[in-house]
């Protein structure tokens, strides 16, 4: 043992100096070269050398094989393989990038206390007919006349409108203004250019385009006679005739047009007074085991439905919530629907409309309401589904509508419906100069009526046609909202009150209604409505990005690693070698050439040129020996020559280093 240590000691003493001895010349040369060489750049003299060096030393797997393999075919194969791998990497990475903005959907269910939605209830009939009668008397009279002329309808023999008869006689002599303005016409299918006027009963020629309301979608050819009305623009040069397959539709549409005209001139306050009050509409109200009354409802005036009442609106202090499912814990109301006050031409059904919506949402009662029948209990069970979409760049939806170039004329949160209506209304104000009655007023505009805008109806119809045909661009500009709550309703009906309970229930309800109405309530004047959560399971459908930037990078890493065992370091290497180094090599060569050219121009022609030629050849074939041998000879003329030497030196050193390294284990 002692001897071994001795030996070890000796060797140890011998070794430490040797690295210094070896290193010293290297350092010296390096320092020398550095001093001589002002250009710091690539260490290979030519691009070929550089490539070779790269292929041998890079960490990617293909390149080394190209250099190392023997035989042309094998080398070619390796070149092909490497190129294929590179191509595959590019292709796969392109696929990864192109599918980056995809979403994954998750559906979650929570059982929790749920906010009760806002519930808007409207009577289908907007205004008490007794209150609006004097406004609509002329119109009613003319409608009746038209009905009489066309269908032989017995004038004014309807059930409870005896007082109207006196009006009829009073208006007999006056000039009919509504029919004159927008004449109702009957066409026979064969001769569309001839039409019978309702007012006079005479046939008259109709010019202008005839638009069949129904025939666009469904071909109705069976009826011999079609009814329609003619709308003309101000100068009466342009006219359009709208026809309907049924007189019912034609007359209702015609009536509605005039009705809107008249109501547009009535101030809002008066309209609210003409409609139903909350106390009148709601007989009883019960929510979650607690009594509620008219104070829990907020008024919302809808142009076509009159006074509507919203339960649980945000204007009330807190949003009510339900912590139990079932009809007992929901909203239960009994509505008073007085059929006697119904407008015979405007509405032809009886009942109420109810809509369930978010507190900040505008209730589009005319579009998506659920109708409630009288003498029935309507029980509506709800399920809440919340959806969240990802906005740009995943989809075209909008978070709050601020990035949609349409100003929201509704005092409510953005929705696609609001956007479309706002868009139409804005266009209407732009084109026709006045606003359509059934939508809110944009700033600095007023509703259309024929006193101020005599030809608005023609304009409106034209615009509406264009809107439906998506010519106004509203549909392309408006985008859907990113998040929305949806209540799925399950509606079922039952008879109410039951035969046996009717006897006691109706008098008590009459007492509850109190002095609002003087008469005893009838079964058909009442409707019961129950709205409740079926269960407190809330489904949320959420989109989340399927890919994150980390995922993308790791997928890149997977691809690069799979095909070539490459990494970002390799990419940097490639950039370094292929761009920076090779460009500087080229630049250096150009610089040399320029210098030579300069030198040749100034130096006397002679043997010098041949020297340069030799140099050029040398540049092409930079073997180790030539690189070593050359510099001493033309050292004075070409200052650029040193790099090759330095480079090759370094190159060789790297190899020898590696060689010894790899040989080490072999030796032992």
């Amino acid at each position, binding site marked *: 043992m*002692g001897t071994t240590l001795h030996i070890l000691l000796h060797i140890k003493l011998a070794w430490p100096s040797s690295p210094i001895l070896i290193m010293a010349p290297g350092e010296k040369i390096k320092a020398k070269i550095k001093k001589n060489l002002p250009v710091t750049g690539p260490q290979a003299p030519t691009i070929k050398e550089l490539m070779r060096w790269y292929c041998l030393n890079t960490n990617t797997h293909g390149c080394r094989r190209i250099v190392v393999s023997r035989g042309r075919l094998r080398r070619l194969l390796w070149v092909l393989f490497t190129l294929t791998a590179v191509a595959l990497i590019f292709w796969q990475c392109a696929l990864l990038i192109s599918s980056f903005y995809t979403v994954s959907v998750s559906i979650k269910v929570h059982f929790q206390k749920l906010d009760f939605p806002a519930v808007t209830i409207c009577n289908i009939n907007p205004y008490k007919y007794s209150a609006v009668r004097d406004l609509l008397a002329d119109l009613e009279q003319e409608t009746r006349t038209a009905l009489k002329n066309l269908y032989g309808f017995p004038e004014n023999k309807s059930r409870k409108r005896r007082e109207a008869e006196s009006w009829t006689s009073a208006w007999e002599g006056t000039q009919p203004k509504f029919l004159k303005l927008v004449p109702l016409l009957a066409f026979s299918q064969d001769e569309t250019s001839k039409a019978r006027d309702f007012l006079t009963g005479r046939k008259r020629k109709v010019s202008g385009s005839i638009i069949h309301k129904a025939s666009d979608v469904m071909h109705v050819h069976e009826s011999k006679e079609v009814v329609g009305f003619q709308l003309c623009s101000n100068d009466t040069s342009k006219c359009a005739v709208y026809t309907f397959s049924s007189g019912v539709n034609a007359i209702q549409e015609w009536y509605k047009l005039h009705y809107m005209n008249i109501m547009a001139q009535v101030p809002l306050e008066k309209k609210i007074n003409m409609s139903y009050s909350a106390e009148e509409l709601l007989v009883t109200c019960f929510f979650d085991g607690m009594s509620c009354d008219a104070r829990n409802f907020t008024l919302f005036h809808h142009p076509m439905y009159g006074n509507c009442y919203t339960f649980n609106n945000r204007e009330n202090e807190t949003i009510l919530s339900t912590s139990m499912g079932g009809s*007992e814990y929901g909203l239960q109301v009994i509505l008073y629907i007085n059929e006697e006050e119904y407008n015979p031409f405007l509405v032809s059904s009886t009942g109420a409309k109810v809509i369930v919506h978010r507190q900040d949402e505008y209730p589009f009662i005319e579009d998506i309401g659920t109708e409630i029948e009288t003498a029935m209990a309507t029980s509506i069970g709800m399920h809440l589904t919340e959806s969240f979409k990802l906005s740009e760049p995943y989809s075209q939806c909008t978070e709050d509508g601020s990035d949609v170039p349409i100003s929201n004329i509704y005092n409510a949160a953005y929705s696609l419906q609001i956007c479309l209506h706002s868009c139409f209304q804005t266009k209407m104000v732009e084109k026709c100069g006045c606003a359509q009655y059934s939508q809110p007023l944009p700033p600095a505009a007023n509703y259309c009526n024929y006193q101020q805008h005599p030809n608005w109806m023609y304009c409106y119809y034209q615009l509406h046609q264009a809107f439906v045909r998506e010519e106004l661009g509203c549909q392309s500009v408006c985008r859907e909202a990113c998040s929305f709550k949806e209540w799925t309703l399950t509606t079922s009906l039952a*008879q109410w009150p*039951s035969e046996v309970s009717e006897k006691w229930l109706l008098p008590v309800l009459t007492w509850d209604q109190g002095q609002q109405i003087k008469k005893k309530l009838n079964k058909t004047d009442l409707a019961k409505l129950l709205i409740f959560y079926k269960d407190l399971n809330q489904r949320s459908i959420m989109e989340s990005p399927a890919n994150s930037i*980390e995922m993308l990078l790791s997928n890149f890493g997977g691809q690069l*690693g799979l095909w070539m065992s490459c*990494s*970002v370091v390799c990419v940097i290497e490639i950039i370094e070698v292929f761009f920076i180094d090779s460009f500087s090599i080229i630049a250096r060569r150009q610089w040399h050439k320029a210098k030579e050219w300069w030198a040749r121009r100034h130096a006397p022609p002679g043997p010098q040129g041949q020297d340069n030629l030799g140099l050029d050849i040398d540049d092409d074939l930079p073997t180790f020996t030539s690189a070593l041998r050359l510099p001493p000879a033309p050292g004075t003329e070409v200052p650029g020559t040193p790099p090759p030497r330095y480079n090759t030196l370094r190159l060789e050193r790297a190899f020898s280093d590696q060689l010894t390294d790899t040989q080490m284990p072999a030796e032992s």
Partner: protein
Amino acid sequence: MHIKKYLLKCLHRLQKGPGYTYKELLVWYCNNTNTHGPKRIICEGPKKKAMWFLITLLFTSLVCWEWGVFIKTYLSWEVSVSLSIGFKTMDFPAVTICNASPFQYSKVKHLLKDLDELMEAVLERILAPEQSYGNASKALNSTIWNYTPLVLIDEQNPHHPVVLDLFGDNHNGSAPGRTCTAQACKVAMRLCSLNGTVCTFRNFTSATRAVTEWYLLQATNIFSQVPNQELVEMGYPAERLILACLFGPEPCSYRNFTSIFHPDYGNCYIFNWGMTEKALPSANPGAEFGLKLILDIGQDDYVPFLTSTAGARLMLHEQRSYPFIKDEGIYAMSGTETSIGVLVDKLERKGEPYSQCTMNGSDVPVRNLYSDYNTTYSIQACIRSCFQDHMIRNCSCGHYLYPLPRGQRYCNNREFPDWAYCYSHLRMSVAQRETCINMCKESCNDTQYKMTISMADWPSEASEDWIFHVLSQERDQSTNITLSRKGIVKLNIYFQEFNYRTIEESAANNIVWLLSNLGGQFGFWMGGSVLCLIEFGEILIDFVWITIIKLVAFAKSLRQRRAQACYAGPPPTVAELVEAHTNFSFEPDVAGPGPDPGTYPDEQTLPIPGTPPPNYDSLRLQPLDVIESDSEGDAV
């Protein structure tokens, strides 16, 4: 000595690393590792070296950070969802059918006689206070209304509301004369506890609601004292309710229905519950292959004050689940045919740790009272059980509408005079509901039956006559028509063209996902793999070894210096010292008879006390392998 030698050998073997100084080790590592960055640090010039060093450092930190991100994502237990829609043969849902009225009035009349009379008197007093007080009051039976009386609160003077007892005979003179309307007067229920000393009023804005609630409370009180068997007999029997039944082409009858007593709706009948026999499958969409039922709800025999809505109540639910028909049931109207197209909307979730749901309710801290029915867990059952639990704890009796735990009794006025007060407090309590919601977990598998409901008049005018004849004959064996439009209900329940929509959860990120992403990141930035990590670990171990060796050497040198200081004589020559370091035989001479053995208290613990690590280290520096093998060979 042997052990020492062995330990020395082990040490040598273990320590046989690539280098013997930190620098060597690092250089060797950088040169030989497979990760891409470090190699370039070594073989480039100083500027590039710095650059590559920075790049490598940057990439390493990037990799670490992104690994953190991925591990965090993995531990968030996200799920991905797959949705499937289509038609397949499925078990037909269980169909529960009830009548809106729980009992036949003709059979419960004797129980409700007093209450009904009282109710009528109350209504009379509310509607026409002037006339009724004189004649009606004498008939009132005072046994029931002592507990929760109805009162009329006159709010004409808002500061001094006048309370009028609707049952009292002796009113102060002003009250009966005054007419009271809904605007001025409110009907309220007086709820008292502790022998009538603490009272509250439960106000109602409508008299209709007040009298209904009051009647319900009193009826509950009456029915809770009646044994269950009698209640079942008072309800609608299956043969009266279910007139005809057809499942696909197969005829069925009321015998195919399982009877269950529901406190709200009396006798309910469940078709295809799957409790005793296998559930019936349905292999075809369309009304022809569904369940067709004709029911008679017998509207004439309804309890007049208990329910004001007439119709059949029905609900579709899963096999072996309890029907919570009051929450999820729908109405079917008499005199109509109700067609119900069914879509089974199933949600299958993964349990812990992906979501907080429960598979069978065994991990919920609430005792399921509905387990007596052998039904599966549902959150509704849990919440009701929880409520009943609270009720028993607070009011010491169970509510009639919920099942009773063993050894408890239902609430009634006689035994628990305060229960109505207690119950109404508990029912209004938000805290109670929230504790129940927090305690109960939703079940992982949630099935909803989406219904498309449509209605038509049935029977038609033309067919009415013969249909009623046939059905009357079948049920009552009478030639007269015993049925009417007001009672008859037709139901068609069938699968839609697409009868299922299944949403299934699966783990979004599994361990394979995690590993491939970790590998991807490491590979992307540095071209590394798990082997590189092992390499790195090896280097770290070497590092530790070198440190240990250095420390040992340091300790040695320290001790030696101290020992030198202790020498009394002249300092030892260099040759002596060299000898001391190298020669083992030399050492015991010094250590053995040394001046003070106490100065080396840890002598025994050190493996090679005499050999100073520095020389040992440097010895192994360069042609290590050769020497190593030499020394080993020598040792052997």
